[in-house]
């Protein structure tokens, strides 16, 4: 794939991720701290990992977060929340993906990604509050993360199939 095509496609991914980010911010999350999100945008992260790779996924996450905090307000605190969760989940997911598609299904990978996303956000929250007490929401957050991860996985599997058929990525 030539570079121009790649850049355009990644740009599209970023904008999709942005929209998903905005949509998921409308869903209330059981955490006392702002900026904790469910991880819908992980759909794009997974797809980027599948069709491109870890580095590209990281770039998409980063750009998406920067733009999201610029457009959404909330400043650098919100940025840190999203970016940590996003990077952690991208890392975990690409690790699992690379170790073999025969071993892990997209759904399984997405669940792992969602969990990592949540853990990353809690870590940042704890760092901000200088207090580990935020971790009390972990059990509930992890469960909702699983459910969200499952959903993300389903969507991503579908998307993957659909996108492959279009042959854009060949």
């Amino acid at each position, binding site marked *: 794939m030539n570079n121009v095509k790649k850049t355009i496609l990644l740009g599209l991914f970023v904008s999709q991720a942005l929209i998903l980010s905005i949509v998921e911010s409308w869903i209330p999350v059981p955490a*006392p701290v*702002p900026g904790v999100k469910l991880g819908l945008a992980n759909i794009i992260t997974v797809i980027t990992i599948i069709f491109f790779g870890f580095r590209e996924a990281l770039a998409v996450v980063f750009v998406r977060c920067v733009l999201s905090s610029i457009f959404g307000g909330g400043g650098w605190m919100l940025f840190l929340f999203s970016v940590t969760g996003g990077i952690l989940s991208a890392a975990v997911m690409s690790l*699992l993906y690379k170790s073999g598609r*025969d071993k892990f*299904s997209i759904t399984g990978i997405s669940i*792992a990604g969602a969990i990592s996303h949540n853990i990353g956000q809690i870590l940042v929250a704890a760092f901000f*509050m*200088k207090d580990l*007490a935020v971790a009390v929401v972990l059990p509930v957050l*992890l469960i909702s993360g699983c459910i969200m991860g499952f959903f993300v996985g389903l969507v991503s599997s579908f998307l993957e199939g659909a996108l492959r058929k279009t042959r854009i990525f060949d």
Partner: protein
Amino acid sequence: MLKKGDLFIFGFVIILIAVSFFGVSLYKNSGKNTNKIAVIIKDNQEIQRIEIDAVNEPMEIMISGEYNDIILVEKGRIRFKEADCPDKVCVNTGWLTEKGDMAVCLPNKTMIKIEGQSSDVDIVTY
């Protein structure tokens, strides 16, 4: 759709959830005789401690800073009643009633959390 490795992921996640659940339960139940003390922290400084179980009349506490918050204390519970910060996550968190519960107004750098003040005795004679 289910692959071999997925089972590992599941196992791991379930263990994670179980561990965090037990950890949180332990924290909430630790200390033989715990009074619930609501601690109000602003700019990383503790500014007030309230024994919420001993409060009989509701009372309000004003916090001013970059933004203004009003904290409402009633018997056994506390919450952010009003805040003029942009996201209002603090107010939406609702009532804090158990040890470990917390609410944060990040823009105003204000936090309420409920600690347990552990003591070996329930009361002392005199």
